[in-house]
Every structure is written in structure tokens, then in C-alpha cells.
């Protein structure tokens, strides 16, 4: 088993890492695109505040401006970490 694992060991799949990073950043940039210039900054500051209390992922905070007829609605969503991760504090 060990030997097989060793034989199968490959360098880290950096293409997967690239894809995941892009998925997140592109979604973020699309959400703030066309909206007010302060959105990315607002997102960053909100993230910093939330992280004082909960250890969320860097992409856990999403801000979005939705146009609804006459109104513009600023949508915020914060994904909290999975329960057991938050409690044990281990990674």
C-alpha cells in the first residue's frame, strides 16, 4: 500500500489550485463590477471585522449590488466555517 502510494505520488496539481483561485476571484470581481468603486474596499474591511470574531475564509464575505427596479440593494453574505473546524481550531 505504502509503496503504491509512493509510486503514485505526484507533484502537487497546480492547475487545480489555479482553477480554484480563479473561480473565487472572478466571481468576486464580477459581483462588484459596474457597482460603486468602494465595494472591494468595503468587502475587505468587513472581512477584517468579521475575522476578529470568527475565523472565516478570505472569500467568505461576498458583497453584491442588485438592481431591483428603482432601488439598488446591497447584498452581503458571510459563509461561516463548518462547526467542527471552528470549535477544534485544528486544521
Amino acid at each position, binding site marked *: 500500500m505504502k509503496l503504491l502510494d509512493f509510486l503514485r505520488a505526484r507533484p502537487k496539481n497546480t492547475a487545480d489550485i489555479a482553477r480554484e483561485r480563479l473561480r473565487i476571484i472572478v466571481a468576486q*470581481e464580477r459581483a462588484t463590477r459596474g457597482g460603486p468603486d468602494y465595494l472591494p474596499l468595503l468587502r475587505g474591511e468587513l472581512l477584517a471585522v468579521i475575522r476578529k470574531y470568527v475565523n472565516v475564509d478570505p472569500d467568505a464575505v461576498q458583497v453584491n449590488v442588485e438592481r431591483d427596479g428603482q432601488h439598488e440593494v446591497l447584498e452581503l453574505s458571510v459563509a461561516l466555517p463548518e462547526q467542527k473546524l471552528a470549535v477544534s481550531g485544528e486544521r
Partner: protein
Amino acid sequence: MTEIIVVTSGKGGVGKTTTSASLATGLAKRGHKVAVIDFDVGLRNLDLIMGCERRVVYDFVNVIHNEATLKQALIRDKRLDNLYVLAASQTRDKDALTQEGVGRVLDELAADGFDFVICDSPAGIEKGAHLAMYFADRAVVVVNPEVSSVRDSDRILGLLASKTRHAERGDGPMKQHLLLTRYNPVRVEAGEMMSVKDVEEILGIPVLGVIPESEQVLAASNSGVPVIHDASSIAGQAYGDAVARLDGEEIELRFIDAPRKGFFKRMFGT
């Protein structure tokens, strides 16, 4: 009807000029009357890739400023007599282009019966890039399978959707095509490079073609012959396929799989 196609990317050096030259040449080979315009004022390149640098007398900026007629400035290709190049100015800066002037040149090309006008955009998102895309009916977004190129391309997609005549007229989304260049199937298979599918999923626009990384591209630019003329090169063949798709044909992607390796190589690497 004249179709204006912008070749754009955001990031520099990804293959816009190489692509503009081959798409224009390929469309002309298929019998269309084509003009290809270099919007990279101050850093002209297209004339070299098209192999007509010694025949540039007047350029795009001269026409815009009424210092020459369009007829005087259009350079007829050596090989294809339905293909014309409009070179960028080498000496002027980007402010030499005006939206009104660019619009006038494009109208005149339409009146002259051109089927396609290919606009080779400069890198970046400044004035030159903006004017190259402004009048477009379709966009070919050139992307390398690399994080910064993909992100910049997404930025460009945002501009295409908002800062173009097409968008201002409320004509709905412009037809956008993804052209992935400098693709290396061996590295994709090894997990070192994002795949066509990865990039297509992130950007969310249909694939026009995948151009493999190929030594023939440099050979072609060395000799001033667009690589699509080189039928023995895979990059040339891949551009040929992309042109056919641009022209409405449905063809399967080629050159996206790594050559099959033997058992031992697969087990023990490289």
C-alpha cells in the same frame, strides 16, 4: 454586411497580433474580403507579422487625421488580393486615435464592400483597447492558460458588455469567442496547466479554438508569413480550424490531447 471583429485580451503578449494576422489571412483564404487594422499606435507590430513592413507609407492615424486617404493607406497582401492591412503609426501616441475617426474609417471599409474587419487591440484597458473594441460586432478573446491572463480576460468581458456601441445600443450581449493559445497538452495532463474546460468554465464563453504552443509561430513571425499559411504546423492547422468555426462551420477541437505515452513512461514520469 461588414462584420467587425475585435481581437482582444487585456494582458499583453498573449498572442493577439499573431491571432489577428492568422484570422484575417484565413478568412481571406476562404474568399472573404478582409481588412486587418493595427490599433497598437506607437508600437506597431502587425505589419511585421503580416510581412508588409516595408510597404507602409501611410497609416491608420494618417487616415484619421485626413493626411491620407484610406485607399492610399490600405496595403494589399502579397499573397491574397482580397486581404488588406492598415498599419498603426509608429510615431504618434494613443491620443492620435479618436472615436469619430475610427468610426469613419470603419464606415468607409463597409462602403467598400469589406466582409470582415479584424481589429488587433493593444494590451491593457486604455484608450487604444477601448477604441479597438468599441465598434465591434463580435469579440475574440485571446487567453493563455495562466491565472493573470484569465483574470484580465474576464475584465475585458465586463468591458465588452458595457463599453461598446453594441452594448450602448442595447443589442444584448455581443458574440464572444474564447481563443486559448500557447496550450500545452502534456503539461495539462501533468496537472501543471489549466485545461480548455477549466478556462471555458471560469470565463463562461464558448471556445473558438485552441492553439498549441508551437515553435512554428516564431518561425512564422521571423519570416513575416502568418502561421496559418504553414499547413505543416499544428498551430497553423489549429488557426485554420478556428477560422472555419468563425465562418460558421462546426469542427471538433484538435491538438488538445497529449500524445499517448508507453506504460513505463506513464508509471515513472516524464
